[in-house]
């Protein structure tokens, strides 16, 4: 086993030192994913979040909040009913919804009970979007409240409404009612003075912001409701292009190692490997292990870039790990077969790339599987690239369960095993 590890470690080191090989294995797939993702509208979509706004309050204040949210450059807001908004978020058509429940205007979105205030509905996995929405809504509540006070009439109208409700409230004691009534009347007087002097904007704005910020009720009455998305489709173009681009990472590894086997034969290092006190199977196992590890690393790296830089979201990490491992094994087997296609690096490279291009074209490496016409999808059944891409898509956005994933993994593993057995036998026979 030590010899196998030594051969694998040596081959991986050689791969890392060959900048051209490294580009084809790591750089090219990311470029492909980025290029096709951006021309398919993937770029820039994440910057503007599509959301629904539900105004059940229908007060001047709630309308001001809606106006604030719609004016945000970070949101593409559309008004909808609460049921409709929940459905759209669940289907993944919208990132979130913001519902201004009845009674929001009375409390300026602050305080109140559990049936009033503001509700944000978002998928629990969208932690970043959730916090971003919370910040945007809080800012909109403050700004709208500030606007209401600053506009004078709007603020005094609310004070008068509050006074009327206070007078009608029989549950409060006379003393408490008197205190609150005096406070509201003083505030009304203060605002009437400001109205007459026309100096509302500056100081009142500051007073409004300050008072709201230090609200005794403990801040805005914001609730986040978890709406689990159904994962019924890709959420961005990159969720299609990155799984497709793993085909190029796998092909890059496959070709690099297949050519390296033939190159070793003609340069004599393979002879020295064969003269060492290890079996031919161990030599080829070392080569296979190196290719498998390189494929694992390359696909993982490409997807990591997709997740971290392009917001590709993995629905099921465990299934993704199984998909990556099975795809890497499959292409290790293909590598062993490709290595038998010629006796020189040029002949192996030529024959190998010809086969790989056809497999990639028909298997979703160039045209995404989701965009293929029906006849091409049938043709793609014969390409192993399809099953590698499909397995990763299944774990990223297709929402595969184990029952859907296992047949795909079985095809990949069977093809890999067949390739390893056939390739090893042919290469061993050629040594005699």
């Amino acid at each position, binding site marked *: 086993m030590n*010899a196998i590890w030594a051969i694998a470690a*040596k081959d991986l080191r050689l791969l890392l030192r060959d900048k051209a090989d490294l580009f084809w294995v790591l750089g090219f797939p990311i470029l492909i994913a980025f290029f096709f993702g951006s021309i398919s509208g993937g770029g820039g979509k994440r910057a503007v979040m599509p959301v629904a706004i539900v105004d059940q309050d229908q007060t001047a204040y709630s309308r001001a909040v809606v106006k604030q949210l719609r004016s945000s450059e970070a949101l593409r807001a559309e008004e909808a009913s609460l049921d409709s908004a929940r459905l759209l978020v669940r289907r993944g058509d919208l990132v979130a919804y913001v519902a201004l429940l009845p009674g929001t205007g009375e409390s300026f979105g602050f305080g109140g009970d559990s049936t009033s205030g503001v509700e944000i509905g978002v998928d629990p996995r969208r932690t970043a979007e959730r916090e971003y929405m919370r910040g945007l809504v809080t800012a909109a509540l403050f700004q709208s409240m500030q606007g209401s006070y600053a506009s004078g009439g709007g603020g005094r109208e609310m004070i008068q409404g509050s006074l009327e409700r206070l007078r009608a409230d029989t549950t409060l004691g006379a003393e408490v009612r008197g205190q609150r009534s005096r406070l509201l009347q003083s505030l009304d007087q203060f605002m009437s003075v400001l109205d007459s002097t026309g100096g509302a904007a500056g100081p009142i704005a500051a007073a409004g912001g300050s008072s709201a910020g230090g609200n005794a009720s403990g801040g805005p009455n914001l609730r986040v409701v978890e709406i689990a998305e159904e994962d019924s489709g890709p959420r961005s173009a990159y969720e299609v292009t990155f799984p497709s681009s793993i085909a190029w990472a796998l092909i890059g590894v496959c070709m690099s190692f297949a050519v390296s086997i033939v190159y070793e034969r003609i340069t004599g290092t393979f002879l020295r490997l064969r003269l060492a006190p290890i079996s031919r199977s161990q030599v080829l196992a070392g080569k296979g292990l190196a290719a498998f590890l390189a494929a694992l690393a390359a696909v993982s790296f490409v997807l990591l870039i997709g997740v971290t830089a392009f917001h590709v979201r993995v629905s099921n990490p465990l299934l993704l790990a199984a998909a990556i491992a099975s795809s890497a094994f499959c292409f290790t087997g293909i590598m062993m077969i490709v290595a038998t296609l010629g006796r020189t690096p040029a002949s192996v490279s030529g024959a190998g790339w010809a086969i790989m291009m056809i497999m990639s074209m028909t298997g979703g490496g160039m045209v995404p599987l989701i965009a293929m016409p029906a006849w091409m999808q049938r043709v793609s059944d014969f390409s192993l690239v399809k099953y590698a891409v499909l397995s990763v898509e299944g774990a990223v956005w297709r929402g595969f369960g184990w029952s859907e994933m296992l047949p795909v993994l079985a095809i990949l593993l069977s093809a890999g095993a067949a390739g390893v057995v056939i390739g090893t036998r042919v290469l061993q026979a050629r040594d005699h």
Partner: protein
Amino acid sequence: MNAIDVASLRKSYGSLTAVDDLSFTVARGETFGLLGPNGAGKTTTIGMIVGALSPDGGSVTVDGESDPTRPALRQRIGVAPQALALYQDLTAEENLRFFGSLYGLSGGRLAERVLWALDFSGLAERRRDRVSAYSGGMQRRLNLVCGLLHDPPVILLDEPTVGVDPQSRNAIFESIEQLKREGRTILYTTHYMEEAERLCDRVAIMDRGKILALDTVEALLRAHGGPERAVSHVTIERGTLEDVFLHLTGRMLRD
């Protein structure tokens, strides 16, 4: 018991007979030369002795064992192939560590043998340079010591001085002479007469897969050098052109 015993060995590639009924023995501690022009069958013979090629007929016994593919026997054989068998993108040290690990060396023993090999080949100072940056002579010396890392008693050297400068050739000769002094068995192929004359105890002259003559250099001269004649002349002792070259350029390795 002989270190190497080759009996009636045959190998053909299609209609071409590369080795034709070849038989010879190499005693323990002996340096045996296979001397012949290109295409004589020397490399094919070595390939069959080490088990890299399957013979069409005949037998090979090395160190008393008839299956050269057995790992235990391969541990006792060191080979320097004619084609440079080195990874160009690895350093000398990385090449040595890798090939040493294939022979089961590890830890302190591997480090010790790598140091020995670097010193023996005069590459200690360039140990961390990639092989692709080495001169032809340096690569030949590294190719030689990669086969000696595991300290084998039987060594097969297939034209180890091809394409090297006189300094490196001289260094390789001195290395081989040291191995001789240590009592190792050496099978040495070459098409340079002076190399065989300098290094080998016995020489087999091969052509077209057959041995044409086999004996000590002295005996071969007596047998095939023509009748002895008494010639009276004045001998002016002088060196060869190689002596002149080494005198002018020095014996120090240049790379």
